[in-house]
Each structure stands twice: as structure tokens, then as C-alpha cells.
């Protein structure tokens, strides 16, 4: 069948028209994919892929219907965390015996409030309050920040994403409230956030946790408005690294002490908390 531009993307997928069941789209894609050799015919694959991705955008990927309510469940109960959850049983080799059916049911069972899988030492809100406390008291030492950013409360990827968003908001608002950093430095009446808070150590911890600089592309995709913030952090890191390079011309890796110290600090903070 020669692709009919009027009927794209369905023509490329060798479908008559948009199917009612979105799974038909995947089936059509799979069928056609097996007839081409992506390695030898890149153009054909790129054409098929473009049609498939567009078709999925129109008709859905055939997965959402099945899962929508589960996700909804989590959003509703997501804020609640219980602090006295038992230690999760350690799954062992017997896990291999779990049938797909049981696995499919697992999310529903476990999104109820008393999830046996969570062992949060602190709930995200408490940790967030502590972070606000650090900002109010202008405590920018990385040793304070590290245990909070790596807190077990943010082990859940969705919770971590929220934490990251909050941090960006705090820093970006602090940033634009003061205008340019340079002028802020001249301005003795720096308000909430002083210009000195982006010490190298703090930037380093944030970058280790959320890769705002090292995965700059990913960061800008998530937070396009925060580009000036990112540029500032990048320059702090770069200056710090340039200095480190002049200190140790042999370019040795970070000495073990530097690696253990934050860890010790983290243990101490855990004890305090």
C-alpha cells in the first residue's frame, strides 16, 4: 500500500482509518516494524516511528484506560504517610513465583494508607519545613542540606519531584526578587536570600541530588523558567572546579576524606533529627 498523505498517519501504519481501540495502533506498528529492517533502512523506520508517535498522541497509547484510576488513587492518598510502618519484608527468590495477575493487583492493594512498603523516617512536609527553616536562618552549609535532600521521605520519585519543584521555586523567587546577583551583592539590604547562599558546597549537594547543572538539559526541560538560576549555579561549580584543578595539578580524584565527611555529617544529622 502506498502511503496516502491525506490519510496520514493511518496510511503509514497501513490502517484504513483511526481505529476505535488504541491497541490496534500498536498492533499495526508492530506488524509493519517486522517487515522493515531499521538497521538497513533508517528512513523507513523514521517515517514509521513518526506516524506511530503521532497516532499514539491522537488515540492514546492503549495503556492509560487500564491504569488511570490507580494513579488517581495515589494522588489522593499520596500526601498521607504513616510513620510507624513495619520494616518491609525482604522479597526473596520466591518473588519469581508471583503470577502476573498478582503483580497487577499489587498497586491497588498497596496504595491504601497503611502501605507496608513505606518506611519514611520523616514525612515530606516535615522535611520541607526544615528546609524553610534553613532558608530563614540563612544556613547555607552543605552539611545541613545534604541529609534533608537525601532524606528517606523523598525516596519516592514523585515526592522527590515535588521537592525539586519547591526548591526551584524558592531559589528562582529569591533570585528574581533581587534582580541580578551582582547588584544584589552591592545591595546591603539583601532580603530573604542573600547572594552568598550559593556556596560551592551547597551547589555541589544540589547537583548531586538533582543534577541541575550536570543534567542541565533535563533540568531546563522540567524548569525552563529557571535558566538564569542554572547559569549562576554552573558558574559557581565551574569556578570551584577550576580552583580545585589548580590546587591539585595531577587531577587526582576527590580525596577519601571529602567523600567520608558528608557521610559522617549525614549520620550526625540523622542522630539529631
Amino acid at each position, binding site marked *: 500500500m502506498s502511503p496516502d498523505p491525506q490519510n496520514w498517519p493511518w496510511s503509514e501504519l497501513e490502517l484504513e482509518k483511526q481505529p476505535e481501540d488504541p491497541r490496534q495502533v500498536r498492533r499495526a506498528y508492530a506488524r509493519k516494524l517486522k517487515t522493515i529492517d531499521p538497521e538497513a533502512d533508517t528512513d523507513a523506520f523514521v517515517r514509521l516511528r513518526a506516524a506511530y508517535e503521532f497516532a499514539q498522541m491522537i488515540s492514546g497509547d492503549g495503556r492509560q484506560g487500564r491504569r488511570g484510576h490507580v494513579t488517581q488513587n495515589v494522588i489522593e492518598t499520596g500526601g498521607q504517610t504513616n510513620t510507624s510502618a513495619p520494616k518491609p519484608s525482604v522479597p526473596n527468590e520466591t518473588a519469581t513465583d508471583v503470577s502476573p495477575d498478582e503483580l497487577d493487583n499489587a498497586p491497588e492493594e498497596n496504595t491504601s494508607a497503611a502501605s507496608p512498603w513505606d518506611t519514611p523516617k520523616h514525612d515530606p512536609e516535615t522535611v520541607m519545613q526544615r528546609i524553610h527553616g534553613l532558608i530563614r536562618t540563612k544556613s547555607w552549609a552543605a552539611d545541613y542540606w545534604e541529609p534533608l535532600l537525601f532524606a528517606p521521605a523523598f*525516596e519516592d520519585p514523585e515526592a522527590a519531584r515535588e521537592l525539586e519543584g519547591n526548591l526551584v521555586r524558592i531559589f528562582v523567587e529569591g533570585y528574581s526578587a533581587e534582580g541580578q546577583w551582582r547588584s544584589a551583592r552591592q545591595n546591603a539590604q539583601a532580603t530573604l536570600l542573600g547572594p552568598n547562599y550559593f556556596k560551592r558546597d551547597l551547589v555541589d549537594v544540589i547537583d548531586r541530588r538533582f543534577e541541575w547543572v550536570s543534567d542541565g*538539559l533535563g533540568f531546563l526541560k522540567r524548569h525552563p523558567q529557571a535558566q538564569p538560576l542554572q547559569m549562576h549555579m554552573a558558574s559557581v561549580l565551574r569556578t570551584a572546579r577550576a580552583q580545585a584543578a589548580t590546587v591539585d595539578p595531577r587531577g587526582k580524584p576527590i580525596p577519601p576524606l571529602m567523600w567520608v565527611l558528608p557521610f559522617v555529617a549525614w549520620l550526625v544529622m540523622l542522630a539529631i533529627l
Partner: protein
Amino acid sequence: MVCVGIDLGTTNSLIAVYGDNGPELIPNALGEHLTPSVVGLADDKSTFLIGKAAQKRLIRHPDLTKSLFKRQMGSGTELRLGRKTFSATDLSAMVLSSLKKDAEAALGCDVSEAVISVPAYFNAIQRQATKDAAEIAGLKVRRLINEPTAAALASGVLDRDEESLFLVLDLGGGTFDVSILEMFEGVMEVRSSAGDSFLGGEDFTEVLARHFCGELSEKWSDLKPEDKEILLSFSERIKLSLANSDAAEAELPWRGASRTLAMTQQKFEGLCATLLGRLRRPIEKCLHDSGHSTLEIDRVILVGGATRMPVIRSMAARIFKKLPERRIDPDHAIALGAAVQAGLIEKHEGLDDVVMTDVAPFSMGIESNDSSREKIVEGIFVPIIERNTILPASRRQFFSTMFDNQRKIQVKIYQGESAFARDNVSLGEMMVLVPPKPAGQEGIDVRFTYDVSGLLAVDVTVPSTNQTFSQVVEDLAEAMPASEKRTRLAAMEKLKVNPRDEAANVALVEAIKHLFEMLLGQDREFVMGLLGRFEAALDSQDPRRIETERREIAEIVDQIEANYVT
């Protein structure tokens, strides 16, 4: 012509082939599937030992033995073995060449092509170094396959009728990778992958070793290499023992005395907090890039020996709220998957309705200046093929001139994730001529085409003149020139390597000597006796007697090792 699948690991390497009964592992000269990725020189300082024999010499001869060199792939670091220096590529080539011989012995034919697995997060230079190593070992690389993809391929082929979205967590000896894949209608589609190429099981062992070092009132940085190896080897056993029990305790011969050191699961988890924290980012990134949430994941598959650690399994269970699966031995999955890929390339009839598509593990693009803001920002990295784009892919983007009457545009090609070009890996550059016009009224169309074998083609078109400029970035940054590969291949063939038929004997002698170092008092004498007994058998030169004795003594050695940690 046979194409094999190879898992060139940080700690262990394996080789497998796709046969009539699906993928199968090939044993080495010792009859074992795991060949330690360790290379060393024997006592004569000229014969090379590869695998277990070398591994058992780490404690006694740290200056003559190298392990964990995968971490230095493509870094240009020189590794010293006795009086000679080698690159990580050279040492990897020796491991590959040993695996190749094992496969040739088992299959009875020449093995000259391979699919080799690399961590998904390996950059272009590290990938090229892996290819170079294979060529030095006399293997043509048909494909480099990402490790988590290989693992998923091994698990996915088991039930190809199933439709599911699954996540593979691969924690090997030295690298950590996460991939999200979707399986439907025989199509295995990688959606996204992320990872940390400097995080693995060996780091957990080191945390333990450093802790014990503190308990012995010693300073880690002041320890001699052999003492570090003793502590690491000891910690490795404790770590393995903690995989099956809540607490472990063992005696360590230290400075002539016996010290009892103990560890509990809970304490170990505390010690690993920092490392566990580092596992989070790649998982978050992978989920974000795939556009899925944790609850949409149907299955979580654990791969890599380090996922045997209960701390990892319980963390995975907490994050994904489901039991992680280990359907295939986590040590074997990658090699088996690489063999499946080899089978796909050879169009093996058992795989005729399976298609696998992978993604670009990193972003590729060019340097540009951002003039969309008040101040022009120079040196911005503009990705043209973004990471986790399904391959093969071809994308284009338009760039316009910055100055009036600009005649040239320099196109600098980079790979990486930093927003600033100079922080990424440079892949090359080209000069494009444009007719002089006012700023912004002239420009170029840049097309990037990246195929499954890792070949990047850059085509630049000037729409106003219809002129095209193209470049294929084949030998990515710092690739080894063909002439040098030939020289190294020749040098490799001249190296004196311990003969294959003696490998089992040498490995046993080294294993006994290693055990001797780890024991004290009466146990030492007993082990000494074993060595005497085996050496007597070797002296007799009676192959049958040697084999019987070897089997018996090896069994005793294994038993002592198993009982070592309580």
C-alpha cells in the same frame, strides 16, 4: 561463522551463544560461567594469568594484579602490572581473548564476531574503547548492546506473548543502570534509560571495608595495597553472607593476630545510606524521561550480582510498591541477553517474530549562542537528537547567523547533558560557508542521523544556496587508529598467557594460597597440607591423578570458604 554475546563486566565476564534451545552460557576452562575480570602476572613476572587464578592473587600480589579496570575504560589512565603499563582497553582485550578461546573450545569453531554489552550510561569514548578492546582480541563487534536492554531481552524472550511495561534495575560490580521497556506484539521497545557508570557492588564492599578499617583503629588511606585487598576480600565475604542472613561474623587475620568482626543487616544499611541515595537520581530520571509513574510499571526486574543485597531489593520494593523479580540468575541475564541480540543479528529462526528497538543513551547536538534574552549567552548546547530518542533517528534544526555579512558558521558537534557545550564531550566540528547577508537572514539546516550501531552522521544544508556539507562521526573522539589496533593485536598474540589446559590447576593453587592468607593457626596448617598434596599430584604428571585430586581438593577449598563467615 558464530556470533557470540559477551558481558564484559566490572567484576566478572561471561560469554554465551544463541543455540537451538535459546541462549546458553559457555563455561570457561575451569568449567565455571563467571570469569573474574582480573588480569595479572604470574610469579615469573612474564606469564599472564586471566580470571580466577589472577583474582586469587590480588591479596598477595597487588602490584602484579589488576581488577576493576572497566572503570578506567576510555580514560587514558595507565595501569601498572609489574614493570609494564597497560590501558584498561588492553586488559579488557585480554579478558575478551580468554573468553573467545573458551567459546572456541566449547563450540569447536572459530569465533570472530560478538555482541558486547556496555552500561547504558557509557559515553561515546567508553564505547569506542570497548570496541577497540574487542578488535585487539580479534573480535569484530557486530553491536554494542546496553546492559539493561540485554537483561530485559533475556527476560522478555521468555514470555514474548505478554504485554507489559517493565523496569530493569541493573546494579553490577561497578555500574548502575535503569531502563524502562515496553513489550507488546513481539516488539521490545526501550523507552528510556539512565544510570551512573561509577556506582556498583564494589562500592558497597568498600564502604564495609572502610568501616572495618575504623574498627581495627587503622586509617584507610594509610593502608598498604595488600592490606586493603585483605580487608576488601574479607568485606566481600561478609557482604555475600549478609545476602542470606541478618548478621554475619568472621575472623580476620590482622597483623599476626585474629580479630573477630561482625556486621548486621541494619548497620550495613546505615553505612550504605550515601550509596543508596545515589541510586535514586537515575531511577527518577528514567521515569521522568519515559513519562511513566512508578505505579504504571508492571514488573520490576533485578539484574546484576549486587541486587542480591537485601538493601537493594527492599529499596526497589519500597519505591515501586511491588515485589522485584529475579527470574533469571542476575549474574547471567546480561550475557544471555547479548546472545539473544547476536541471535537477532544472525536472524536466528527461533527469533523471527521478535524486534527490539533501543534508545540513544545521551543527547547529541551542536554549540550555539542564545540571543533570545537581553544578553547574548554564548556556548549553549542545543541538542538535536535528545537522549532517549528511539533509534535509528534522524532530526533536524535550523540555526541562523549572528552577525551582518557573516560568511562562515562553525558547527561544533557535542554529546552530553550539560546546557553548556564546553562541559560536554566534543565529537568533532565542521566549517560551513554561507552567503553574506544581514544577521539572522541567513542560516543553516543541521540534520543529525544516529543509527543503532552508534554511527552519527551530520548533514548541514544552506537553504539559500542548496549547498550541503556532511560528516560522519564514525571514529568518535579518541578512537584508536587502525594501524595501532593492528600493532596491539600483534603484541597481544606474542604475550605469554598461561595455557588453557593448565588453567584449572593454576587457579586451584592460587585459591589455596589465597585461603592460607585468610586463615590462622591450625586452619593454616591444614590448608598448607592441601597445597602439598596437590603439588605432589602435579609433580606426578599423571593427568588422571591430577584431575581426581583437583576435584577433591577444590571441593574441600569451597567448603572452607563457605564456612568461613558465620
